[in-house]
């Protein structure tokens, strides 16, 4: 164990603790209830490209959504959780198999409302820590002054890549160019991307009036994919259909995934709500001017 490494990381880890404290305060202030749910479960939510870590008895979950939505359905109101999640095989400068996720649900809200609230959270953190909405990240000054630029997926892809993923069905190219081009298309400003092709938003509600897109939005800052937000899908039958497609895609890769019947049952009682997932490690990277996720972890593995 390199103690020298731990000593060198201390300033970042102290700032990390401060970010967690401020984030909890932000949600408590707004009357969100902090909840805890299991990290080990018999079966995760079916997602084609997110693989859970298998254990002797079940899976370490890639997201707490499986248990937070039933709490929402049971009438707990606005809830949030900061927890460890697990995604098999994800390791890189912005990825670890085990990482920290902030998951939060606002009832009676839509995806763009929750994106605005997420914007408020990040501005609040930057102002509390730096006393400014100007952020220096990897040699660039990023202006966090709200409101942040909002671009539909169609506009962003037309701009950065010259094609429209809503009319052209090419999920592979979409994923690649989202990560390599769109994520960093506004180097000096945050980017709120919204209205994803339905295929890329398995748990989001379809946009009324345009079923080709779903109500999903993502926030990127400094090339980091920070937060993913949905208007939650509350139609159990539609959800079953979408999960079936995810299960088939997973099967193509040789993974057997089960239909989460209890979860679908709970969706019948789900109130209208928006839900978000924000990568705490990347948020800390941004606020510590860290190029790699290992700089903000005590034991990066």
């Amino acid at each position: 164990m390199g103690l020298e490494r731990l000593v060198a990381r201390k300033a970042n880890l102290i700032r990390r603790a401060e970010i967690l404290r401020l984030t909890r305060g932000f949600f408590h202030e707004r009357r969100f209830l902090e909840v805890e749910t299991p990290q080990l479960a018999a079966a995760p939510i079916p997602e084609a490209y997110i693989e859970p870590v298998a254990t002797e008895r079940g899976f370490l979950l890639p997201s707490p959504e499986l248990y937070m939505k039933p709490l929402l359905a049971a009438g707990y109101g606005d809830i949030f959780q900061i927890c460890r999640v697990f995604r098999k095989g994800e390791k890189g400068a912005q990825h670890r198999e085990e990482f920290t996720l902030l998951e939060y649900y606002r009832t009676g809200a839509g995806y763009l409302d929750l994106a605005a609230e997420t914007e408020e959270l990040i501005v609040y953190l930057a102002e509390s820590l730096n006393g400014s909405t100007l952020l220096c990240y990897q040699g660039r000054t990023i202006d966090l002054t709200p409101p942040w630029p909002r671009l539909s997926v169609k506009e962003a892809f037309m701009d950065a890549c010259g094609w429209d993923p809503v009319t052209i069905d090419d999920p592979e190219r979409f994923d690649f160019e989202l990560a390599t081009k769109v994520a960093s298309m506004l180097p000096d400003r945050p980017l709120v991307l919204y209205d994803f092709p339905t295929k890329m938003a398995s748990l989001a509600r379809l946009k009324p009036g345009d079923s080709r897109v779903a109500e999903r939005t993502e926030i990127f800052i400094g090339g980091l994919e920070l937060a993913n937000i949905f208007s939650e899908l509350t139609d159990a039958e539609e959800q079953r259909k979408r999960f079936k497609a995810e299960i088939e895609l997973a099967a193509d890769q040789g993974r057997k995934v089960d239909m989460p019947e209890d979860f679908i049952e709970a969706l019948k009682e789900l109130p209208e709500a928006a839900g978000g997932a924000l990568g705490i490690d990347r948020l800390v990277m941004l606020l510590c001017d860290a190029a790699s996720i290992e700089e903000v972890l005590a034991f990066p593995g």
Partner: protein
Amino acid sequence: MEVSEVSKNNKLLIDGVPFAVENVSFVKPGKGRAIYHLKLRNLMTGVLSEPTYHSGDKFDEASITVRDMQFLYEEHGHYHFMDTGSFEQYIMDETIVGDKKFYLKDSLGVQVMMWEERPIDLILPKAVELKVVETESSMKGATVTAQQKLAKMETGLEIGVPAFIKEGEVLRINTLTGSYVERVVG
């Protein structure tokens, strides 16, 4: 092996050609497919490339070994080496040896990177000792400090050496930078 298991310094066989992995970078949109950017060096040509792969892509590992050998002699651009373990002889082409030929003196101990039974790269010791065969006599009255002059070594290598070096002396030379290290006495 699966692309997710590939790491730096692995040797892969792609379309029948061996590559060394110099870097792996993992990119993935939260809900989308994982992408692996590999930085590969073609071990036959030395050319770098940066291809992209997806989860589930598979590779064969190239069986690369490094063996201790001794340089024997050169003939018509063919360099002959002997495996000091098996006493087998191998021939390496001038295109592979390149500028390293300037360090190859008879019986030099080297390492050879082998792909199956083919020598594909030559690894020199960090420093070699070579004899000076030609150098200008140092100018009278010139200060010795930082004074460099040209010297030609027994292998044809030309380097800058301190002014006090004479013909017939043996010098230790860094094979990576091609620079003078010290005079070998005795």
